[in-house]
C-alpha cells in the first residue's frame, strides 16, 4: 500500500472511532502531546491503560463472583477504571463505568454483573481498535512516512 494511502486509511480509521464514540477528544489531546521528544507517548499510555484495565476487570470479575459481593471493593475499581478510561479518551468504556457505578450504589448485584459485561465489551472493543490503529501507524512509520495529524473537523 502506498504511503499516502496508508496515511489516508489511518485518518479515516481514526475518524470513524471518533464518530462511533469509541474515542473522544481526550484521545486527541493525547495525540497532541506526542512529539519528537515524546514519540511513543500515545502507545505508551495506552499500553499502561490496557495493563491497568486488564487487572481491574479481573478483580471486578472476582469480586462480583463472590457469594457476598463487597461493593466497597467493587466501587473503587470501577471508579478507577472510569478515571483512566476517561483520561485516554475511551469514551464508551467510561460511560459504561458510569452506569456500572450507579448500580453499585444501589447494590444491585445482577445489574452489576450486566454492567461488568458491558464494560468488558466496550473495553475489548476499544482495545482492539486501538491496536489496529497502532498497527497502521507502525506501518506508516516503517514505510518512512509521518503519522498525519488528526483533523478535528469531522
Amino acid at each position, binding site marked *: 500500500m502506498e504511503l499516502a494511502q496508508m496515511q489516508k486509511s489511518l485518518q479515516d480509521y481514526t475518524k470513524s472511532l471518533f464518530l462511533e464514540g469509541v474515542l473522544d477528544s481526550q484521545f486527541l*489531546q493525547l495525540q497532541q*502531546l506526542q512529539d519528537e521528544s515524546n514519540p511513543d507517548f500515545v502507545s505508551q499510555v495506552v499500553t499502561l491503560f490496557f495493563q491497568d484495565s486488564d487487572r481491574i476487570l479481573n478483580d471486578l470479575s472476582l469480586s462480583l463472583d463472590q457469594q457476598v459481593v463487597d461493593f466497597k471493593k467493587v466501587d473503587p475499581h470501577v*471508579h*478507577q477504571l472510569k478515571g483512566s478510561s476517561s483520561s485516554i479518551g475511551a469514551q464508551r468504556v467510561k460511560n459504561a463505568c458510569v452506569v456500572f457505578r450507579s448500580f453499585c450504589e444501589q447494590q444491585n448485584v445482577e445489574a452489576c454483573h450486566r454492567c461488568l459485561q458491558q464494560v468488558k465489551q466496550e473495553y475489548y472493543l476499544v482495545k482492539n481498535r486501538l491496536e489496529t490503529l497502532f498497527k497502521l501507524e507502525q506501518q506508516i512509520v516503517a514505510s518512512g512516512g509521518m503519522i498525519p495529524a488528526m483533523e478535528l473537523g469531522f
Partner: protein
Amino acid sequence: MTVEQDCVALDQFPVGMRVLAVDDDQTCLRILESLLHRCQYHVTTTNQAQKALELLRENKNKFDLVISDVDMPDMDGFKLLELVGLEMDLPVIMLSAHSDPKYVMKGVTHGACDYLLKPVRIEELKNIWQHVVRSRFDKNRGSNNGDKKDGSGNNEGVANSDPNNGRANRKRKDQYNEDEDEERDDNDDPSSQKKPRVVWTVELHKKFVAAVNQLGFEKAMPKKILDLMNVEKLTRENVASHLQKFRLYLKRISGNQQAIMANSDLHFLQMSNGLDGFHHRPIPVGSGQFHGGAAAAGMRPFSPNGILGRLNTPSGIGGVRNNLSSPSSGMFLQNPTDLGKFHHVSSLPLNHIDGGNILQGLPMPLEFDQLQTNNNKSIIAGNSMAFPSFPTQQSSLPNNNNHLVLEGHPQASPSAFPGHQINKRLEHWSNAVSSSSSTLPPAQNSNSIIIGHQFDVSPLPHSKPDSLEWNTQNASSSYSIPFFYYDSSQMRQSGNYGPTTDAMLSSNPKEGFIVGQQKLQSGFMGAEAGSLDDIVNSTMKQEQSQGDLSEGDLGYGGFSSLRTCL
C-alpha cells in the same frame, strides 16, 4: 535553592515551576506528567502518597506545587492534602474522577487550592501556576509593609516572580529602608557573612525584647538596644538584623492574621489605646510566662475579657492586653462565628481557652523577620474568621506607635485545614520542645532543632539554611528557636495541645518548631492577644510555604497560604 537559583527560576516563572504529581493510577499519572511537561513545568511523579510525603519532607524547597489524586490506596488524598498543607505549606491541587460536589467541598475544606476533574485537560493545567503565585503573594501581603529587605531571601523574594510582588517588595524595601538605617547591613556587608552566627537564645531574646520595650518599639535602634542588652560579643549588626526580623514578623503577623497574640514575656508589642482598645503592655521580659500552658489562662497577664481570642469570647479581642476594651475589638468580634469555625478548624483547645486567645502564651515567633513593622506598627492579627472585618479594623488599628495587636488566631482560614495545621504544628513544636530540654541542643534532630536551631531555618525546618537569603546574608543573626521553645515548654505544661500527632512531630524535626508554635497558637488563641508568641505562630504558619518561608518566618506564612488556598 540558592538565592540566585531562585531568582533565575523566578524570572522564568511559571516555566520551570516544580510540580509533584501523585496518582496511583499509572495511566493517569503518565498523562498528567506529559501534560505538565507540555506546560513547561518541571515534573516529579510518584504513585504513592507516602513516597510523595517523603519527597516533600526531604526538601521543602524542592517543589512549588503538588497535584494529587483523591483516591489512593495507601493514603487518602485528602489526608495527604492536609499533611502537605500543614507541614510544607505548599499549594495542593486535588484531582479526581469524582465530580460529586461533596468531594469538591471536602477538597476545599481540607485546604486544596483547586479541584480538577479527570480527565484533566491541558488548559486547566496551564493556569495552575496562579496558585503558587497567589499563595506567595498572600504571604507577602501578610507581611504588609514590613518586608524583609534582604534581597530575595524572603518568601516574597524568592520564587516570587509576580510583578506585583516584585513591586510590593520594592516598595516594602523602601519603606523599610526609611524606617531603619541599619537594616541591610547584614545583608550587604560581606564581612557579616563570615561572622560566626549568633544564636538567639531565649535569654538573649528576652533581653532584646526588654531593651526594645524600654526604648519603645518604634524608637528602638540597634545601637541602643545593644547597649541596653549589654551582652558581650553581640554586635550591633546582630541586633539590627534581629530587630529587622522581629519587625517583619510582627508586620507580617498583623497583616496576615488577625490573630491577637497573647502576651508573653517575650511580647514586646505595645498597643495604643486609641485604636480599638487594644492595649498591649509590654511585658517585661523577665516575666517569662507565656501564659503558662496556654490552657491555663492564668498565665495571661491580661484579663481574659479582652481576649481577642474570639474563640471563646467575643470579648476576646479586648483580652489582648489589660486595657483592651473588648467590645471595641469589634472587628474581632466575629468570634462567635469564628469560634465555630475555629473549632471546626482545629482541634486545638481553642475552646478551652479562657480568653479564647489561642495565641496566648504562644512562643515567640521564630520569625522575627516577620516582625517588621512599618511606621504603623500595629499588627493586628485578627481571628481568621474575623478576617473580613479585619481589614477595616486593621486600618483603624494601626496607630501611631507600635501597637502590635496580635490576635491569637492565626488561622484566618476558615477551613479546617489551617486549623489542623496550626494544631499540628503547635503540637509538634511543643512536643519537640518538651522533649528537648530548654537548653539549646546543638544537634539538629527533631527536638533539639528547636532549641538550638538557628533561626535561619525558616519556619519550617528547612534543610537548607541557605535557602533563606537573609539568613545567609545575615550570618550574624541566627535566631534560634529557643525562645519559642521557652514558651512552648510553658505551654506544653498546660497540656492543652490539641491533637498531637506524633507522626507529625517526628515527621519533620525542624518543623517541630513551627508546628509547636502553631499549635500553641491555636490552642491559646483568644486568651490574650498580642503575645509575640502568637505573632510568631501566626507568622510561622503563614510563612510556611515551601522555600520562601525560609526567611525564617514561622508559621505565619503557612497560615496565609492556607487562606489562599481556600
